[in-house]
């Protein structure tokens, strides 16, 4: 058995180096082909009609006029769009028109006659009372922990009630607050969609997906064929963020239309459809009472939270409240609200960003109430850290504070003084995530001429998966990253898990390192015989296989590979999720700090500086790793300040579902961002851990806290738009 491991830091020549991503040039020159860019000969263009109302019953649907528009080839009506069926969110696709051009398809679509019976619409997830009145609420679970236990004769609920009240009463400081964070959309720049073609009874599907290895089976199931008849391709994907794990019913429709018409079909959602139905993150709102001792350590937490994950129920899980820093006594109760909005999908670190924004804001308000430095209050509360990372947080806080120059910039909440109408403030937050490796298999071929190529059914969301795989192979064989060829993005390749939950880097490092180390053992055996040394003294460095003790004894990589004879060496390695391994690990921390300016007259907030300190075990490529963190922070700035899904209360229509109206951060909005990779030896030896999710968690809470520090009042609900800032100032 090969002993799998990583080389030590000073022995690494490729791993840990800031290398350019291997597909950087092909992307930046526009040559990379995304699903949207795949044009197949004779393809049809499909477009879809979405339901115009947030809640209705289909009365009738007449497609005859659409079918007779010149250029229209096929009209597909979804089963859920048949008469008498109820539609529960606006935008739900009802009809697809496939035509010779997109223009003809759209014209056909405009001729579809739809009659609906409008039913009651509810979209105001923030308004718990209204939701209760409308009968839209259900229990979302909860949990109680108290140090003191009820006696045998006590009624448990009564006991808890009394105990919480007692603890609050005995607290030196009590904060009562209301906080919230609205739903946002994934808003992938490449919308969901596919270009598909049936060939001899098999389906070739180009699908914009985070799940190459899993979607072939999903296609097969819905199309009633076996999975060997389906191949899914995705060389490049224009954003997923947790929303692209399935072909979706529109992908299935594309395949059905293609089968029906015998022609390739391209079916990408329109921009408004992408925003309306293809992914959003649940909202969360919370009323909190917390009590702390004289040092500001929270002793008791009591919260009622609610929110909506859309028409199919669900909300932010109570299980992550309060976030990371959990006192010994707490009661948390959650309610879910059924809104007439599209069902939510996983969004970078499901539940965590909301939980962080719903609870570390309250912790910051405690600092405000105490007149204390938020840094000190967070520091004091590390005793409540539930993930055994208090020491890591402490160090990361020190690093972040230094990079932010926190001590010099700090002023008590609302006490910074104004220059004109401008005030500034500091805020921080911290987070945690798993990020353990997903399952992954890799087929590796080493050719007798020295060529190296790998095949793995994973995908690159933009985090640099190809680059990381290349680095791992190159490091193992003592080669450069351009000496190896990595193939990903096809379901024909060995199975690899979906890219979600920061599980990809662990997965592909496991499979590629294992396959490469297995191959190297065999090459070492051959080389050892040739060099007449023991195989265990050999190492692969600088394009050579050499004797560690006598480097002059060596073979070039090509010469060593030629010993394979006529056939390439093939190894396949698989990693089973959850298997303890020296190569990968899970569980990270992370601390972030924000410095903002607020214009008190307009409520406009500007980012001055943002600091993110992040651990992720062993860093394979610091450059792409940092990019991932920059991106998470910038997405966080967008969610904290700009992103709003605005629905018309009467119709449930998502009124701002275009990029001109659904505001995202622009290049000029981000301020200075400083990213620090936290990789002491104690972290590095843990192996690789994904970092896609963790840095996306804290920005909203950190920015909200900075705004609270600037203004001296809390703007309760995120995003912190000028309207909300002014409304909060008017109320104060």
């Amino acid at each position, binding site marked *: 058995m090969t002993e799998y491991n990583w080389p030590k830091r000073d022995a690494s020549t490729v791993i840990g180096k800031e290398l350019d991503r291997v597909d950087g040039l092909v*992307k930046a020159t526009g040559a990379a082909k995304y699903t*949207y860019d795949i044009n197949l000969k004779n393809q049809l263009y499909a477009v879809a009609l979405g339901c115009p109302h947030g809640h209705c019953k289909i009365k009738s649907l007449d497609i005859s006029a659409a079918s007779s528009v010149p250029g229209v080839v096929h009209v597909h009506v979804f089963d859920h769009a048949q008469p008498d069926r109820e539609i529960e969110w606006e935008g739900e696709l009802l009809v697809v028109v496939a035509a010779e051009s997109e223009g003809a398809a759209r014209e056909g679509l405009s001729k579809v006659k739809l009659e609906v019976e409008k039913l009651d619409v509810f979209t105001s997830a923030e308004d718990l009372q209204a939701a209760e009145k409308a009968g839209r609420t259900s229990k979302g679970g909860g949990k109680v922990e108290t140090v003191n236990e009820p006696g045998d004769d006590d009624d448990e609920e009564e006991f808890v009630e009394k105990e919480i009240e007692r603890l609050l009463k005995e607290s030196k400081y009590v904060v009562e607050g209301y906080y919230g964070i609205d739903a946002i959309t994934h808003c992938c720049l490449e919308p969901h969609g596919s270009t598909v073609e049936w060939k001899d009874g098999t389906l070739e599907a180009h699908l914009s997906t985070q799940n190459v290895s899993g979607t072939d089976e999903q296609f097969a199931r819905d199309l009633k064929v076996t999975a060997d008849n389906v191949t899914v391709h995705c060389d490049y994907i224009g954003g997923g963020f947790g929303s692209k794990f399935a072909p979706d019913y529109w992908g299935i429709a594309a395949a059905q239309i293609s089968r029906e018409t015998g022609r390739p079909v391209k079916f990408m959602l329109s921009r408004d459809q992408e925003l309306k139905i293809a992914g959003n993150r649940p909202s969360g709102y919370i009323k909190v009472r917390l009590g702390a001792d004289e040092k500001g350590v929270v002793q008791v937490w009591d919260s009622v939270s609610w929110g909506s994950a859309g028409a199919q129920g669900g909300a932010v899980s109570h299980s992550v409240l309060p976030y990371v820093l959990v006192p010994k006594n707490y009661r948390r109760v959650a309610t879910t609200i059924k809104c007439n909005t599209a069902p939510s999908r996983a969004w970078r670190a499901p539940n965590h960003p909301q939980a962080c924004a719903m609870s570390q804001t309250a912790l910051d308000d405690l600092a405000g109430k105490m007149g204390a430095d938020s840094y000190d209050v967070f520091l004091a509360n590390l005793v409540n850290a539930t993930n055994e990372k208090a020491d890591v947080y402490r160090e990361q806080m020190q690093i972040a504070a230094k990079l932010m120059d926190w001590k010099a910039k700090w002023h008590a909440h609302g006490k910074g003084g104004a220059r004109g109408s401008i005030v500034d403030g500091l805020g921080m937050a911290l987070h945690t995530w798993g990020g353990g490796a997903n399952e992954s298999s890799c087929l590796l071929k080493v050719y007798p001429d020295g060529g190296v190529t790998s095949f793995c059914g994973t995908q690159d969301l933009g985090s640099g998966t190809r680059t990381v795989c290349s680095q791992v192979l190159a490091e193992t064989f003592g080669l450069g990253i351009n000496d190896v060829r990595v193939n990903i993005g096809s379901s024909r390749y060995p199975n690899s898990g979906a890219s979600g939950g920061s599980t990809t880097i662990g997965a592909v490092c496991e499979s590629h390192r294992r396959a490469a180390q297995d191959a190297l053992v065999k090459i070492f055996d051959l080389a050892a015989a040739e060099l007449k040394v023991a195989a265990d003294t050999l190492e692969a460095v600088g394009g050579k296989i050499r004797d560690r003790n006598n480097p002059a004894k060596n073979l070039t990589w090509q010469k060593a590979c030629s010993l394979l004879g006529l056939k390439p060496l093939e190894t396949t390695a698989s990693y089973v999720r959850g298997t303890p391994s020296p190569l990968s690990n899970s569980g990270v921390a992370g601390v972030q700090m924000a410095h903002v300016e607020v214009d008190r007259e307009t409520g406009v907030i500007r980012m001055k500086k943002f600091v993110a300190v992040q651990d992720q075990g062993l860093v394979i490529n610091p450059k792409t790793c940092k990019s991932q963190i920059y991106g998470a922070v910038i997405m966080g700035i967008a969610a904290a300040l700009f992103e709003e899904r605005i629905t018309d209360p009467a119709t449930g229509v998502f009124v701002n579902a275009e990029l001109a109206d659904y505001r995202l951060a622009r290049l000029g909005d*981000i301020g200075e961002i400083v990213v620090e990779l936290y990789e002491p030896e104690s972290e590095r030896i843990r192996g690789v851990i994904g970092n896609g999710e963790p840095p996306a968690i804290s920005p909203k809470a950190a920015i909200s806290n900075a705004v609270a520090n600037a203004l001296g009042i809390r703007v309760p609900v995120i995003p912190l738009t000028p309207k909300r800032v002014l409304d909060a100032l008017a109320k104060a």
Partner: protein
Amino acid sequence: MTDSRNKTGSSSGFNRRDFLRGSGAAAAAAAVQTQAAQAMQDSGPAIVRGSQKIALNINGSQHDVTVEPRTTLLDVLRHQLDLTGAKPVSADGSSGASTVLIDGKPATASTILALTAVGKKIQTIESLGGDNPDPVIQAFVKHDAQQCGFCTPGFVIAVRAFLNKNPNATEAQIREGLNGNICRCGTYANIVQAAVAVVKGA
């Protein structure tokens, strides 16, 4: 009263309805051509209907393409010429992902009807690649100014256009001048670095 100066429709002396009343109900069913326009057909401006063959000057060479009046330049690039670097992200150009250069100036191909581009020099991202890629492209690679990469070609063109006009731009000017494009992955910080590096010739 301010309102007398802030005109409402009915108080306007310049009213559409008066004219409509005169034009009569029959006009509603009439063809779009006015009689005058029909009379002008032979000598006046050409009216284009249905599919047309046109030639577009793209990346230095003429390309024959077939378009309808409603065909956008972006459609032509992507569907007829397989120049898929410019991306369809927003219907109204607000993402900047379809940015190309038209006679040297940045414009979004998604909001340009192909017929209006006849006789103009169109330059797409593909023209900046090749064996010796544009310094902006090289800087994007070096500074990792891309993640998923879908917005990247549009951003590269935008940076190219911006630096053509402001070759000595400061970082502050770069932050102010590149707000016509959207990136969802959050590559802005790297793009700033890349643009600064191009200015410095690094």
